[in-house]
């Protein structure tokens, strides 16, 4: 028995030695400067959430492939600041000196990390570092990225209203946090813009504008969407992660039964998720923000030594950071053209979308 134990340990040691040998050869740094390694920490979703984390990761992977960088992501066991700090520390210690963190939940963790790991650079998406008092402290090794969700929501609202022309619209959000609120407010302004300028007749009622409160309650998403459709709502804008998955499923079931039910997707082009038969989908359009582009751009900037440290950047229509998908069979060409007109106006500044509530619903 003892003999067997010893030989087993020996085999393990040998195997370990072999692998470590490989590692060293592959990772041999270029003389002078160590190779850049890019890490990412996921927030509360998984890496394949078809939304926030996945979008970021796709950008990281694309940059990794293009520039030949080593990439890795870590998923924290929890969603507290301590969980995030631990994984950021793990990545930094392992030589990943550029770390991308998607989500406002990282704000306080990055606030600490930017001082603790001075040799590491951080990209924080949808948030800025602060110590819990909302006063931004962006150090030289951190860049903070925001998206103009209100502009994205505006374009989607405009497209949906132009396409359906009349009826009730609804909104289901996840948590009541700024990015989700801005989607909502922008969407309402888009609908209004269509009503004023193109003579459509779409309305939104207060009871159909809802923040579910989580990003993962699939059952609630289905049930809320069902209530709205039962009340005659024709299209629902879902900015709610997993909650939206339930809503899309409800819309699919209705569409399959021959009833009208539309969903406006969020973050990425969700057309594929709404397919219920052949190539037909319940996704009317999607309010996109190009998270992957943002992640890619920051890695590229770091690679070229132009990392915009200390800044708070906004990706909007001006720098093509938001938009709606180019191809969607549910939208007519004419509608897409009108939306692009509005996009051009956003771009040159002749049209402004407010990112505050004002007199809008919730």
């Amino acid at each position, binding site marked *: 028995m003892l003999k067997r134990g010893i030989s087993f340990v020996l085999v393990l040691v040998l195997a370990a030695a072999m692998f470590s040998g490989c590692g060293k050869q592959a990772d041999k740094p270029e003389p002078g400067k160590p190779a850049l390694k890019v890490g990412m920490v996921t927030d509360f979703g*998984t*890496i*394949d*959430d*078809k939304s926030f984390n996945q979008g970021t990761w796709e950008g990281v992977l694309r940059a990794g492939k293009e520039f030949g960088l080593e990439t890795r992501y870590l998923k924290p066991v929890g969603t507290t600041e301590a969980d995030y700090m631990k994984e950021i520390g793990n990545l930094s210690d392992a030589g990943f000196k550029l770390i991308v963190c998607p989500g406002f939940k990282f704000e306080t963790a990055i606030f600490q990390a930017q001082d603790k790991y001075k040799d590491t650079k951080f990209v924080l998406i949808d948030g800025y570092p602060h110590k819990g008092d909302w006063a931004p402290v962006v150090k030289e090794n951190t860049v903070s990225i925001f998206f103009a969700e209100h502009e994205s929501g505006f374009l989607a609202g405009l497209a949906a209203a132009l396409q359906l022309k009349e009826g009730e619209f609804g909104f289901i959000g996840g948590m009541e946090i700024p990015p989700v609120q801005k989607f909502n407010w922008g969407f309402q302004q888009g609908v209004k813009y269509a009503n004023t300028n193109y003579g459509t007749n779409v309305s939104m009622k207060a*009871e*159909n504008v*809802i*923040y*579910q*409160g989580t990003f*993962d*309650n*699939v*059952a*609630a998403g*289905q*049930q*809320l969407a*069902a*209530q*709205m459709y*039962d009340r005659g709502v024709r299209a629902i804008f879902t900015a709610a992660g*997993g909650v939206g*998955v*339930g809503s*899309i*499923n*409800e819309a*699919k*079931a209705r569409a*399959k*039964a021959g009833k009208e039910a539309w969903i406006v997707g969020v973050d990425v082009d969700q057309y594929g*998720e709404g*397919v*219920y*038969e052949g190539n037909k989908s319940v996704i009317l359009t999607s309010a996109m923000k190009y998270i992957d582009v943002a992640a890619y751009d920051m890695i590229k900037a770091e690679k070229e030594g132009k990392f915009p440290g200390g800044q708070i950047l906004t990706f909007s229509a001006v720098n093509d950071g938001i938009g709606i998908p180019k191809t969607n069979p549910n939208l007519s060409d004419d509608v897409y053209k009108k939306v692009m007109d509005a996009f051009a106006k956003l771009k040159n500044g002749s049209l402004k979308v407010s990112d505050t509530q004002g007199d809008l619903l919730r």
Partner: protein
Amino acid sequence: MWSLITQIFPYAVAFTIPLLITSLGGLFSERSGIVNIGLEGLMIIGMFTGALTISVLEIAMPGAAIWVGLLAAFIAGALFAMLHAFACITLNANQVISGIAVNMVAGALTTYLARNITGSGNILIIHGLVRKDVPVLSALPVIGRLVFTQTYATTWLVLFLVVLSTFTLYKTKFGLRLRACGEHPHAADSAGINVHLVRYLAVMISGAFAGLGGATVIVTYSGEFNGTAAGLGFLALAALIFGQWKPLGILGATFFFGFASTVANVSQAIPALAKISGIYLKTFPYIVTLIALVLSSKSSQAPKALGEPYDKGKR
């Protein structure tokens, strides 16, 4: 009020059914004397197997794929539950720990498999079940509007299984033996009953039902496997205790949970309910459960030998 109830009812039933069948599975296991905390994990196994089977088959056979998926989940649940049975019955391991292990393994294993097989930890199915009105019966006054409109086929399947299970437990030889093993396994053994075999079967039935419950979630309201059952398995376990280990009690308890959760979920979308703070509605079922458990703890109907490994030599 009436319109409110009819508005919520079909969705509450859809939410209740997976809970009901999973809880019923737990009933089989626990009445035979084996604690099954692993219901959550077994549901995840069912969700994964169902979603994977359906997503692979639905292009080729859109209609039948759902039923093949449900069957696959049923079988996968039974097979996976054998792990729990082996640990608890053959190895006399601590049943609670084994159940926790099942939960932990199921979540991690299915996500790992999903990533390796489909390239993503989430498996989306294109076709789910469509809600239909039951012909003729849906025209009945009151009941027709509540019970027979907007129903899923799985609802009727599960209700049929509830009736079948009640009959099996109380009217057949197997049911009597199963209950005997949970109350006094030594007495059952001396009467010539193979306690190990009965318990193995009971745990496998619990796995099969929980697997079916998980797959039902996929084909009805969620439409996507994402590596978690969102605590439904634990809720089913609570309903099992709340329902005092009896089929009718479970039916009542799961429906109570299902209806209360649905009301809490949709309250925001209904002006009449939106006035009540969501916190109260969301915690309501759990507070009622706590109170009910406190009140009923003295007269608990738990099987006498629940949680004890069967040791032939012990008297």
